[in-house]
C-alpha cells in the first residue's frame, strides 16, 4: 500500500478523471453491471415484496441483536465451532495471529472478506512475517499489484486487461502482451490450485450467519472459498456482528436478492452452507464489532447495518462511476461506505458524505431498503456541526444559508449575480471559483422568474 498522504475524495477524483477515456470506460463498465442488475430484477415479479421482507428481517434482527448473537454462539459451539469475539480491528488481527501461531501455520489462503480488508489483516500479518494468498481472482490481481480492492464485489474493476496481463507476466510469467481474459484466468487457476491443495489454513468471510442453526453461508462464483475451506485443516471465518439472520428460511429471501443486485445473476454459482467442521478439521468464527455497536446506537444511521454488501449502490452511483473506488480511501467505498466510514473515523472520512449528488439512485436499488442518500445528507449536517469541514466550504454554505433565508437579499444577490455573469463573465469563469472546474458557468438570463411573474401575472 502506498505511503503517500491520503488525498480526500475530491482531490483523488480529480486525478482519476484526468484520463478521460479511462474514466468513460470505467463509467460504462459499471453501468453495464447496473443494467444486468435491472434485467435480473425485472424478471422477478415479487422483487418489491422480497426487498420489504429483507428490510423487515434485518430491522427485526438489529432490534434483538444481542439475543441472536448469543443464540448463534451457543448453537455454533454445539456444532463444534470455536467462537471468538473481537471489539475492534486490532483484536481481530491479534486473534487470527494467535490461531496461526498456535499451529505454526505458514500456508494460508483467503477468499474475499471485506471485513478482513476493513481490519487490514494482510498488512498486519505481513508485519509479523506471515504471507496470506488472496484467492478471489480480482483480489489476487490487486494483491500482486500491491493495491487495495476498488470495489467490494469486483475488486479489480479499475484495471484493464492490459494491466492484468502486465501484472501476470511479471508475477506468474504469462506471455508478454497476451491480454486474453480466458488465458489470464487459466493462468491464475493453475497458480492458485497449487496454493489451494497445499493450504493449511483457510480464511473466509461470512455472508449470512444463522442464529437458529449456528451455521453460516458463504457465496462465491469462483469456488475459491470452498477450495480453501475444504482443503485446509483449519477454517477461520470472519464476520461482523450484523451478518446474523434469525432463521434458515430467511436465506430464501436474501439469496434471491444478493446476486441479482450484485451482478445480475439469479444466484451465485456456489452458496455454501457450513454447519460443522469436517471430521478432523478445526473451525473458528471471529465475530467482530469494530464500530458496529456504536452505529447501532445512532438512530439516524443504524439501518446502514442492514447492508448485505451487494454493491448495487456503487454501480448505480454517478459519482462512484466517475471517480473510482480508490478515491474513497477506505475498504468499503461507494455510497454505503460513505455512511459506514464516518462512524469509524469522522475526521478522516469527513469528505465522503459529500461525494454524492444525493440523487437517490443508491436508495432505489438497495435490496434491503437502506435510505442511503438521506443518511449521506444527515452525515453532512453532523460533520459540519462537529467542525470537520474545510473552512471555505463552511463559509460558502453559511453564506448561502443566510442568502436563502432572506428573500430581499436573495433577490438582490440574484440580480447582481446575473449582472456580473453577463458583463464580467471572467469573475465566474476563473480558477478561483471551484464550481468553474469541468463546467461552464451558465449564461445568465436578463430577468429572474420572480420579476417576470410580477410583470406578467395580471396580463
Amino acid at each position, binding site marked *: 500500500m502506498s505511503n503517500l498522504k491520503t488525498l480526500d475524495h475530491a482531490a483523488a477524483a480529480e486525478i482519476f478523471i484526468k484520463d478521460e477515456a479511462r474514466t468513460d470506460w470505467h463509467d460504462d463498465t459499471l453501468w453495464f453491471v447496473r443494467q444486468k442488475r435491472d434485467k435480473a430484477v425485472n424478471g422477478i415479479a415479487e422483487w418489491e415484496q422480497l426487498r420489504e421482507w429483507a428490510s423487515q428481517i434485518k430491522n427485526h434482527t438489529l432490534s434483538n441483536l*444481542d439475543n441472536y448473537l448469543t443464540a448463534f454462539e451457543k448453537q455454533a459451539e454445539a456444532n463444534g465451532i470455536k467462537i471468538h469475539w473481537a471489539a475492534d480491528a486490532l483484536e481481530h488481527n491479534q486473534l487470527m495471529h494467535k490461531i496461526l501461531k498456535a499451529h505454526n501455520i505458514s500456508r494460508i489462503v483467503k477468499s474475499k472478506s471485506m471485513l478482513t480488508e476493513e481490519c487490514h489483516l494482510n498488512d498486519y500479518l505481513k508485519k509479523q512475517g506471515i504471507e496470506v494468498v488472496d484467492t478471489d481472482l*480480482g483480489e489476487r490481481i490487486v494483491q500482486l499489484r500491491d493495491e487495495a480492492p476498488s470495489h467490494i464485489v469486483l475488486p479489480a474493476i479499475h484495471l484493464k*486487461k492490459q494491466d492484468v496481463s502486465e501484472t501476470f507476466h511479471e508475477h506468474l510469467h504469462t506471455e508478454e502482451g497476451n491480454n486474453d481474459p480466458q488465458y489470464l484466468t487459466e493462468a491464475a487457476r493453475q497458480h492458485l490450485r497449487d496454493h489451494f491443495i497445499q493450504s493449511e489454513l483457510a480464511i473466509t468471510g461470512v455472508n449470512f450467519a444463522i442464529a437458529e442453526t449456528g451455521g453460516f453461508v458463504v457465496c462465491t462464483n469462483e469456488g475459491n472459498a470452498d477450495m480453501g475451506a475444504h482443503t485446509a485443516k483449519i477454517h477461520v471465518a470472519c464476520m461482523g456482528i450484523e451478518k446474523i439472520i434469525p432463521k434458515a*428460511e430467511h436465506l430464501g429471501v436474501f439469496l434471491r436478492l444478493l446476486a441479482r443486485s450484485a451482478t445480475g445473476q439469479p444466484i451465485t*454459482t456456489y452458496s*455454501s452452507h*457450513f454447519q460443522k467442521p469436517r471430521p478432523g478439521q478445526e473451525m473458528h468464527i471471529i465475530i467482530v464489532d469494530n464500530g458496529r455497536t*456504536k452505529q447501532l446506537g445512532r438512530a439516524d444511521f443504524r439501518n446502514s447495518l442492514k447492508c448485505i454488501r451487494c454493491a448495487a449502490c456503487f454501480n448505480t452511483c454517478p459519482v462512484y462511476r466517475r471517480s473510482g473506488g480508490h478515491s474513497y480511501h477506505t475498504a468499503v467505498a461507494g455510497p454505503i461506505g460513505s455512511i459506514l466510514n464516518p462512524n469509524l473515523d469522522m475526521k478522516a472520512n469527513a469528505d465522503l458524505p459529500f461525494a454524492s449528488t444525493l440523487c437517490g439512485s443508491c436508495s432505489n436499488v438497495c435490496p434491503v431498503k437502506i435510505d442511503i442518500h438521506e443518511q449521506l445528507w444527515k452525515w453532512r449536517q453532523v460533520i459540519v456541526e462537529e467542525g470537520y469541514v474545510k473552512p471555505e466550504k463552511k463559509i460558502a454554505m453559511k453564506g448561502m444559508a443566510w442568502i436563502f433565508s432572506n428573500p430581499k437579499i436573495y433577490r438582490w444577490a440574484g440580480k447582481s449575480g446575473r449582472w456580473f455573469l453577463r458583463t464580467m463573465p471572467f469573475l465566474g469563469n476563473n480558477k478561483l471559483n471551484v464550481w468553474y472546474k469541468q463546467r461552464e458557468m451558465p449564461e445568465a438570463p436578463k430577468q429572474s422568474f420572480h420579476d417576470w411573474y410580477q410583470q406578467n401575472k395580471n396580463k
Partner: protein
Amino acid sequence: MSSREKILATCTANKPALVDLPQLSDEHLTHYDDKIAQFKFVLESIGGKVVALENIEQVKEEIATHKQSGELVVDTVFSIDDALKTQTSFDLERVDRAYLQATLGVAENGSVWLYEAQMGNRLLPFICQHLFIVLAKATLVDNMYQAYQKLNITETGFGVFIAGPSKTADIEQSLVIGAHGARSLTVYLV
C-alpha cells in the same frame, strides 16, 4: 470486561425497540407452469448444461466408458466408496469427472442442492474438472422459499446450492467459465 461481554452489553444498550419479524409465505411468489423448462432455461443461461434422460442406466454406461478411457471418474450416485471420505486435495485434484446425486433443483435460479452425504467428500464438487449432477425431475421446486421448506440444512455438516460451472468476470467484466471450481456442470434430469 471481556470483548464478548462489552459487545453484547453495547448491543443491549444501543438496540432500538423490538420490531416484528415478517411472516414469509409462498402466496406472493412466482410459480411456474413448467418448472422443467424454467430450470433448463435459467441454468443454460448461466453456463450449465441440462440433459433429459430416459433412464438412469445411461449415466451408468457413460461412467463406465470414461473410466475405460483412463479418466479418473468418481461416482457417488450409484455407490459411495468409503475411502473417498478421507481423501485429500492431493488425491482429488486429479479427478476429471465427478457424478453426484442432488436432493432438489430450483426452477427460479437453476441451482441444485447437495448434502455432504451426497458428495462423499466436501471438496469433490469443487475440485473436480467436470461436474455431473443427477436430479429427479419430481424434486424441482419453484423458488428458494420452497427449497428451504423442504431442506434441513442442519442434517449434515455441509450443504451447497450449485448453479452452473465456476466462473469469474474479474478481468474487465469478460465472463470466463472455469475459475477455481469445476469447468463445466451438466445436470441429468431423470
